[in-house]
């Protein structure tokens, strides 16, 4: 079933004979999870704004009794209704709330000025902040160290 679903999403499975697949995707469970995984991977690879994890589930339930909507065009790579997500108000309200969160974050950042003079500084060598190392390696241009990322760094400098 999973292989057939994979073929369906890749446009390599006869849509006419796919009704059983669509029915089992809609009934939930393992196959629905696969369906979501495929679309998550597809969105990530196509460099699109990836929406929340349960987004595809919500789309799925919203599709109601229209199995044909699920079926991708046979030859062309599937682009299931993706452009329309961005045109809906729902998308923009998501974007707006993200922006609001960031704005609040900045406010908090600025209000916490001068808020912590009560504890004495600690020597950095006694408490290595490895998360900074990782963030540096992940974002810095020409980071050869990029490939070391996510290794167990603890004790690396000793």
């Amino acid at each position, binding site marked *: 079933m999973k292989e057939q679903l994979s073929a369906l999403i890749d446009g390599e499975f006869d849509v006419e004979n796919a009704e059983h697949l669509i029915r089992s995707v809609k009934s939930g469970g393992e196959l629905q999870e696969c369906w979501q995984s495929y679309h998550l991977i597809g969105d990530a690879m196509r460099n699109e704004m990836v929406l929340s994890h349960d987004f595809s589930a919500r789309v799925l339930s919203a599709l109601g009794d229209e199995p044909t909507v699920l079926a991708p065009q046979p030859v062309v790579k599937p682009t299931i209704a993706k452009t329309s997500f961005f045109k809906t108000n729902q998308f923009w309200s998501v974007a707006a709330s993200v922006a609001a969160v960031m704005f609040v974050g900045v406010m908090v950042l600025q209000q916490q000025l001068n808020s912590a003079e009560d504890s004495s500084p600690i020597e*950095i060598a006694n408490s290595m902040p490895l998360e900074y190392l990782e963030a540096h390696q992940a974002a810095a241009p020409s980071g050869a*160290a990029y490939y070391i990322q996510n290794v167990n760094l603890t004790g690396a400098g000793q």
Partner: protein
Amino acid sequence: MLKILSAILLATIGFAGFNSASFASEDAWLALQKAAFAARELNYQGIFVYQNGKQTRSVQITHMNNAGQELTRNMILDNQSVAGKPTSKQPREVFSQGSDIVIFHPKNDKVIIEKRRGQNLFPAMLPVNLNSLKTSYTAKIGVLDYIAGRQAQIIELIPKDAYRYSYKIWTDTEFGLLVKMTLQNEKNETLEQITFQELSMLNSHDLNWYQPSIDLSKKYEMEDATLLNRVHTNWIVAELPPGYVKVDHIEFMANGKTAPVNQMIFSDGIASVSLFIEPVVKGQRPKMGHHLIGSTHICANIVEGYQVMVVGEVPLATVQQIAKAVSFKKQTATR
């Protein structure tokens, strides 16, 4: 026409006046320029090894320039064991399209999808515009060597001051591609090395390799909402070490933190330094001082109630100067 000809003639005579050393330097920069383009324009596949201190990584790279669009897949081949337990057999895969990076990171019964931005990943370590490098380094032609069975020309990048390390760059004499690079400190000790072990040019234009290997027994998830946001705050670094410019400024929520972390990235064209700023949290002792991990220097400072952390594969003087030069500009008039 005559004017142009005489101009060319004059230029040629002018060049002839240079001594051989400056010719050698011109040749060195030319080879580096060629390497910068070759890494982005050629289609190749190979395995390279990255070493930093005791850590080693083997990575299989496939790179294709598909009508101006750069596509790369990096598969990290030897996922080292973490805390004694072997990690998943499925390799970590890193896909990049231009500067957009998507990472498929197997973790137990899940695969975490991470999105990043990045550029100048191996072998495209050199910027296309070498002017920034020319202000901070001199380039020198070295000897010939062999890397992955291919002849390579060594070019040395020697820093003009103490704010950066030196680099050795091996370029393939046939294709111009960067095939090896090492980073040396002021004592000429090698800190990092990255080198091709196998390399071949691709003749096909098939893009089937540009897709992750999907393991349907695992659950795919986007990484926890690490919001990346490009920002313009009032943090300023009054006096950067010479040659360094700000190349990026992002803000993100780190795990377990209550306030976002500001991260600025500075680069002199090849070396890069990250500056992190976040409020000091009540009840937590802020950090001071500096430390060396592998080839990376870290320097901590406290500025106006904020924890400042500077990280980079650069000399201590560089991270220290940046850590000292951070200040908060309360004026917002420039915005």
